[in-house]
């Protein structure tokens, strides 16, 4: 196998009409890791992944997967990768096990379908045709179809969306086992705790650009920066967040997360807490919770991709 990244995206540009979906994006995925690609809806994740999967041709820049051009070398690449689609993609009258066996027979050395059926609890689907499977069952079948050909690299798109906690945990364990067995996993997810738990490396996209890259630890450590998270019982009075931002002064960053919660990042200490508490009293705001803590990946993500930045 050639040394080098499993996935290389270098200066990728993708436009739909006037809109630039992916804007000079560059990142790499190291082999045998779980790498999460995160970003709000419309950040360019799907377009980027579909370019890596060979569904779209890079308009500018270069994309290489396992050293191959996903469009030009598609025939050589396809047996080596697994792609989990978010939804759909099955004959409405086909049964889960039938689909899985069908996909297995298209490959030279497939996994025994029974292994995936057991690991992903697909036996509960029985003889139900695809159109009557629940969203979670369709999701799990999608993952099984991506894995059955024993790929070197899998692209998994929202693997645990809509799954109950028990099965979500089983999927996490499966993805960790894949990595341990030498498979490279590229993951997109909306669940940041999922990325924080699983990923060796995280790439955060926004507006088609890479805004942060690193291990979850590197991204959340961020020096002395800590956060104060405030949740209130009534929506903030107009102008109140701006007043708080002024009272905190420079060096801190205030992000309104929604109408009931905000976050202060910066060198937060007890005096910051005291100022926030005083501001609550001044504005007649009743806190539901006020917490000081190290940032988690979700905080970093929200800061980097927040649409509403005060001041």
């Amino acid at each position, binding site marked *: 196998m050639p040394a080098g990244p499993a996935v290389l995206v270098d200066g990728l540009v993708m436009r739909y009409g006037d809109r630039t979906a992916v804007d000079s994006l560059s990142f790499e995925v190291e082999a045998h890791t779980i790498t999460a690609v995160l970003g709000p809806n419309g950040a360019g994740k799907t377009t980027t992944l579909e370019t890596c999967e060979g569904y779209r041709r890079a308009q500018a820049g270069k994309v290489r997967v396992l050293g191959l051009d996903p469009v030009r070398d598609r025939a050589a690449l396809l047996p080596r990768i697994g792609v989990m*689609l978010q939804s*759909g993609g*099955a*004959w409405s009258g086909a049964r889960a096990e039938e689909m899985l066996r069908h996909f297995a*027979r298209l490959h030279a050395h497939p996994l025994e379908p029974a292994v995936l059926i057991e690991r992903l609890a697909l036996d509960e689907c029985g003889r139900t045709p695809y159109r009557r499977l629940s969203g979670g069952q369709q999701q799990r079948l999608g993952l099984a179809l991506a894995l059955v050909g024993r790929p070197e690299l899998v692209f998994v798109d929202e693997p645990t969306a809509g799954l109950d906690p028990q099965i979500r945990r089983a999927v996490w364990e499966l993805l960790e086992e*894949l990595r341990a*067995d*030498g498979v490279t996993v590229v993951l997109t997810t909306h669940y940041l705790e999922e990325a924080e738990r699983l990923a060796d490396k995280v790439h955060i996209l926004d507006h088609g650009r890479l805004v942060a890259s690193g291990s979850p630890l590197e991204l959340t450590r961020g020096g002395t920066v800590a956060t104060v998270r405030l949740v209130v019982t009534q929506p903030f009075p107009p102008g109140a967040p701006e007043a708080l931002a002024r009272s905190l002064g420079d060096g801190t960053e205030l992000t309104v997360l929604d109408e009931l919660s905000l976050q202060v990042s910066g060198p937060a200490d007890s005096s910051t807490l005291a100022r926030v508490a005083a501001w609550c009293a001044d504005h007649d705001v009743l806190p539901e919770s006020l917490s000081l803590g190290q940032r988690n990946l979700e905080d970093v993500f929200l800061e980097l991709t927040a649409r509403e930045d005060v001041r």
Partner: protein
Amino acid sequence: MTTPARATFAPRPGAAPVAQQLLTQAGMEARLMLRNGEQLLLALVIPVMVLVGAVQGAERVGLDLDGRPVDVFTPGVLALAALSTAFTSLAIATGFERRYGILKRLGTAPLSRMTLLGGKVLALLAVQVLQFVVIGGVGVALGWDGPDGIVGHLGVLLAALCGTAAFASLGMLLAGTLRAEATLAAANLVYLLLLGGGAVVLPAEAYGGLESWVTWLPSGALGEAMRSACDGTIDAGHLVVLVLWAALGTALTARTFKWE
């Protein structure tokens, strides 16, 4: 199952041999076609009803035909069966495969488009064998003698193959350009129009002044080729018409087909 020495998910990528993929794909498609009630209606129930109805109706009203009604209508209904499977069923199934993202998902498997198409054609032919056995059986029950000699059987085979090529390419053209619902409507409409006015079941000579025109239609060419074959002659002219339609359909499909 033997205990694997390697880790469960250790990569071992590879595409299956093309022949295995072809058979797998054809088997899946044929099973799905026969499992679907509407498809089954189109493939078997309607042709059998048309055959029985036409033979009995012609005897009752004393239709002026060149031969016994069962000898005229059985080849025509065989042609209709080939048309319904290769065109209407294929177009509808493929339209919904596009709509439901099945072609996209199959695009993630190491299955080339040629193998996918080959699998479809093989599935069509398998379903047609079943149709021919059932319809031929009903024909025989009504007094049909079957195709004349080896040449006749060969002619039926050639007509079915050329007809399938022509109609499958046109069905794919429809499915690859229209939305799934529009494909469903158009494929059924074309089927009905050709059934009535396309010289499939009724011989071209029944269309009077339009006779020379309808045999240029793929339906008329297929119907005439099938009727000639059952009379023991290979109708090269109409087979060529079918091949030309297949070439036209394939060229247009290759230019216009959208996989998603």
